[in-house]
């Protein structure tokens, strides 16, 4: 009995914090999403207009599609980059000291703020930016490449730059825990490098891949700053839609959108967790 009580007691601080700072705010958002509003205030009510306006508007569908597209492309590139870096760190660097050192090198970009890392792309990629000037100086191009900045390309570039590490860390973590004997056994049994990778490393690194994927997808789905700055305001994301609504005091409309986004992201994560049971494999 004492055991059970102490267990509950130990869990209660976290439960309390979650209830106060997660459940209550989300509950408030859900409630507000049914409120009515005018250009200044909102009124307690129970109306479906916020959801109706959201679902009946083609912009919503387009924006969700665009955001999902950003998430999918970013996820794919982050996965390739993250997996490769983690694989190199885990299997090609022998000394643990060197591993730690190189791992720290990966985190260097995170020593400056998110926004600064993003903005620093602008003078680099611009029409008269460093990259265009260098390419033109080398004679590789005659006209500056305009697609480099203020485009979807720039948005995805910034996302990958910002979030690839979220993929590296959990995958690396999974990989270092793989029993090296398994890989040797596979080689002894005549497996090629590719077969070892496919049949031993990837399956065992799956929990790391899944955790990294969840982090990247969740962050990209909710983002608005990167899209605004890197697309020069020319692309939309779901987050940006909410910001626009809030800036005109249309909180109920933003709340309805937030609820829908929350459901979409939860469904995506649920789907990912169905593919890999993280708790079983950790």
């Amino acid at each position, binding site marked *: 009995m004492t055991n059970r009580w102490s267990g509950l007691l130990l869990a209660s601080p976290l439960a309390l914090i979650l209830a106060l700072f997660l459940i209550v705010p989300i509950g408030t958002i859900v409630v507000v999403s049914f409120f009515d509003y005018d250009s*200044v205030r909102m009124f307690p009510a129970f109306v479906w207009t916020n959801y109706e306006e959201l679902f009946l508007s*083609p*912009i919503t569908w*387009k924006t969700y599609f665009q955001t999902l597209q950003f998430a999918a492309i970013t996820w794919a590139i982050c996965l390739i980059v993250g997996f490769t870096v983690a694989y190199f760190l885990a299997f090609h660097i022998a000394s643990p000291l060197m591993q730690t050192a190189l791992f720290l090198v990966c985190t260097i970009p995170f020593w400056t703020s998110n926004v600064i890392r993003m903005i620093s792309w602008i003078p680099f990629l*611009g029409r008269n930016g460093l990259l265009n000037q260098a390419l033109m100086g080398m004679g590789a191009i005659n006209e500056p490449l305009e697609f480099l900045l203020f485009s979807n390309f720039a948005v995805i570039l910034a996302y990958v730059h910002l979030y690839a590490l979220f993929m590296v860390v959990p995958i690396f973590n999974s990989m270092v825990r793989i029993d090296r004997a398994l890989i040797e056994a596979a080689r002894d049994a005549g497996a090629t490098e590719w077969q070892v990778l496919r049949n031993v490393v990837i399956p065992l690194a799956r929990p790391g891949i899944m955790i990294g994927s969840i982090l990247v997808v969740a962050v990209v789905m909710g983002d608005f700053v990167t899209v605004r700055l890197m697309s020069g305001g020319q*692309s939309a994301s779901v987050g*940006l*839609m909410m910001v626009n609504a809030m800036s*005109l*005091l249309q909180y109920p409309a933003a709340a309805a959108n937030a609820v829908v986004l929350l459901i979409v992201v939860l469904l995506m994560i649920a789907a990912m967790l169905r593919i890999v049971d993280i708790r079983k494999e950790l």
Partner: protein
Amino acid sequence: MVETTKKGIARRKLLAAAAGGAIGSGAVTGFPTIWAQNIRNVVLRQFGTGVSNQNAIAEKCKEDLGITLQMTALDSDAVVQRSVTQPNSYDIADIEYWMVKKVFPANVLQPMDTSKIRLFDKIVPIFTTGKLTPTSTIAQGTAPSTVGFVEGPTSTRFASSPTQWFTMIPTIYNADTLGIRPDLVGRPIKNWKDIMDPAFRGKTAILNIPSIGIMDAAMICESAGVIRYGDKGNMTRAEIDKTIDYLIAAKRAGQFRAFWKTFDESVNLMASGEVVIQSMWSPAVTAVRSRGIACTYQPLEEGYRAWGGGLALAKHLRGIQLDAAYEYINWYLSGWVGAYLNRQGYYSAVLETAREHMTADEWGFWMEGKPAQGDIKNPQGQVMERAGAVRDGGSFYDRMGAVACWNAVMDEDRYMVQKWNQFIAS
């Protein structure tokens, strides 16, 4: 009144005591000299957009009146939000006229008694009768005179003609147009529609603040002959549809390089040569020029899109704090601030007093459109323009007399924002 002159009492206590004392003394009718000692200890919390929230003004105010101003600068969206949702977090709201149309009806502000404003009669008539000169017509949009007065001391309804109850004391205002890079456009720019010239494909920008962006868009559409508005500041749904469709078509054709939201973004777009013609604010043009890059605030045939801001009193102000606020406002109009703002290229509410604080050359350059005789310096003492320079657009009357519309908030703004989102998402 003894208690209010004691030193070192907590501010809250002091105010409470003062409020109590004020009623007995009859000083609410406002003779500042009675309060001169007490006012020195008052703290007023003022918040607004960065343009007029300037520390130099707070410092000078402390020096002249003893009143401590705590300034908070926010972007315009946040200003509207805060003024409506947290009315007790400020004493003085420094907001724009289009915001007043939204904020005042929320019953968070109190109107000012014009009889307590010494220079009320000297305020530029744009803000009172609406007519800059007796023959001018009132421009479209949320013209300051249309939201300048309410019907009574506790009313939130705007009056159609001047009353004794003034909503805001104008601080700064200006006439906005397009900024261009004269070295890169390669031809004279005369009309708002020139921003849609295919020659500038991928080299233009407009601002992505829906309530202001739509106005620039309206100026462009009307100039291009796409549409003739009943009132650009209060469009019908059909007018909004047509405007946004035109913008979307231009966006698809690759006309725009970017949509900016903050001052620095607009400066960087222009200075880096990413764009050669765009929506711009006057200080941004100055900022580009101060980097040694040619930039013109181009007057256009269709006229300007004007904006203006002012100081409004929070509903909760009373007693000594209210008197201090009136004193601050009277000081604001008395000349030093006006000259300070005029030197930055803005316009101030009472021109006569500002003139007394400016040199003849400064007045000639900023207000009369005359060539500068010597170096024109900004309030920090940096040289802004050399001798011989002429202000873009000319004199005060040339510029403010050619206002086509004021920044506005529309009755259909809910619909407008949806459509604006569609434009950005397309």
